[in-house]
């Protein structure tokens, strides 16, 4: 048992979150392997955000069990937070800080030492080709660069798992493609990627996806298997067939 726990980045068993009578998350169970790119799909209001908040150590479940990077969501929120990275659709960089200052700030928040920050930021700036923009305010960077920078910052402290909440909102298709290249690189280096998205072409890039409907995980498999199961060759169709039974209205 202990052995398998170590290989799994995330384990959820019967995880439930209730707000009064309302079951935002209704007994969901799934596992995410280390180094896997796991797509977390669902219509608005299906309970994705609530589930993700629990996994990020931001709120407590009502019942069920879950571990993230081997840490318990009830008792070890602090440990979870140290071992995950997070990026939201807002990209969440400080506009009136320069590129380097943003990197230094987030590095500092995660407790990296000064030499570590220095070394890694130099490396990061080089990889992203941002040498000329280091001293520029982030507010002046194009959206696509901001997004790449936000992702790099989210994995700057080398977390075990990175949570991406609709990370490609409002970004053009080419940049989105490049962004996914970065995700693959991160996954190849051993970081588990947990990503929510509304773009079905992106769902295809994931190793496995789960689809949430009305607080429940209705399907979980690789994109190819899901398409085979629903006798279709498009993920759109898979998603539509699963989600159309939803009773909840989007929030």
């Amino acid at each position, binding site marked *: 048992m202990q052995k398998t726990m170590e290989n799994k980045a995330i384990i959820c068993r019967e995880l439930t979150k209730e707000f009064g009578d309302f079951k935002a998350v209704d007994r969901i169970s799934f596992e995410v392997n280390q180094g896997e790119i796991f797509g977390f799909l669902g219509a608005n209001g299906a309970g994705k955000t609530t589930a993700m908040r629990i996994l990020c150590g931001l709120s407590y479940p009502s019942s069920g069990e879950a571990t993230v990077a081997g840490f318990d969501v009830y008792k070890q929120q602090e440990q979870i937070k140290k071992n*995950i990275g*997070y990026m939201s659709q807002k990209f969440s960089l*400080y506009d009136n800080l320069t590129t380097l200052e943003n990197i230094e700030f987030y590095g*500092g*928040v995660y407790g990296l030492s000064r030499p570590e920050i220095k070394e890694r930021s130099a490396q990061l700036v080089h990889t992203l080709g941002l040498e000329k923009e280091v001293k520029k305010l982030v507010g002046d960077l194009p959206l696509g660069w901001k997004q790449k920078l936000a992702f790099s910052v989210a994995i700057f402290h080398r977390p075990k798992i990175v949570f991406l909440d609709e990370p490609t909102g409002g970004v053009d298709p080419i940049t989105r493609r490049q962004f996914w290249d970065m995700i693959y690189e991160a996954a190849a280096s051993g970081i588990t990627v947990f990503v929510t998205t509304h773009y079905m072409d992106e769902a295809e890039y994931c190793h496995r996806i789960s689809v949430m409907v009305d607080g429940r995980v209705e399907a979980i498999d690789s994109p190819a298997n899901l398409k085979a199961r629903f006798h279709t060759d498009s993920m759109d169709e898979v998603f539509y067939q699963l989600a159309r039974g939803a009773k909840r209205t989007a929030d």
Partner: protein
Amino acid sequence: MKLLFVFIRKEFYHVFRDRRTLLILFGLPIVQIILFGYALSSEVKNIGIAIQDNAHDIHTAQITEKIQSSSYFKLQPAVSNYADIEQQFKNGSIKCALVFPVNFGADLLRTGGAQIQLIADASDPNTATTLTNYLQSIINSYQQQLNPNAKISYEIIPETRQLYNEEQNGSLNFVPGVIALIFMIVSTALTSVAVVREKELGTMEILLVSPLKPVMVLIAKAIPYLVLSLINFVVILVLSVFLLKVEIKGSVALLFAESILFIITCLALGLLISNVTASQQTAMLISMMGMMLPTLILTGFMFPLENMPVLFQLISHVIPSRYYYIIIKNVMLKGLGFGYVWKETLVLAFMTVSLLAIALRKFKTRLA
């Protein structure tokens, strides 16, 4: 500790790169001090006065001269009838007028009693009262001059002293109020906006997901504004002492300690506001309308609390700046020690602790 430092440094970047914030932070105190110190002076100086002298004798001449030599009044060209006086009241060149009747001097000597008419523009009642008082005291002093040896069987001579402010320096009253006001603006408004801005940007989410403890986020947000408020405090004190000639009579250390307490009260208020609002505009509006107006009106620095309806007097008891205003006034202007302000300090401390507790609780419940 290192985390806190990283965070605080970031906050300072924000402050120093935002012109709007900088302007509010350092422009406002200076403007306010100058405005309240000079423009909004309640002192009576160089007030236009017209004299209609129908008697033209030695007594009227001497009284006129006395008025002219006083710094309160500025004598306008003599007038000969009431229509002229009224005209001057209307165009604003005078705020009061003095009318000597025909035979003023003769009546005074022959019958031992003469009449004189004082007319004041009472559209501003306070000033009108002050002016007539000044005029009466000038006339009274002339009267005494006339009878140096007169034997009055019973005489009461009031010996008035204006305690704590012998020179009647009007800035004295404003400075403590302005200090309270500025802390309200800098600490409450700017802090609430700073926190809400992170919510709007989405960076708050990232901070909450990070290992930073929520308390740390709040502390890190508050400390820069505490420091900046203290710098402001020094600026205001320096301006007051050198520009407005306000003398600090009490202990400067006590002033600082009390100010730090009040700044923390304001910061707690700001954090509380930021927890219940979602946009920078709302936060600004609540801070400005909800905090500044009561500070302006209900602390007693612009309008005496004692004259207000009971309801407002009651409300004023929950306004933190009211207590701070009393403390600062007592320490700075009267030179009193902690023994005289401990009650107000206690109230303020209690308010601060409660506000902080509520702010923290709100911040945490939002996470659950």
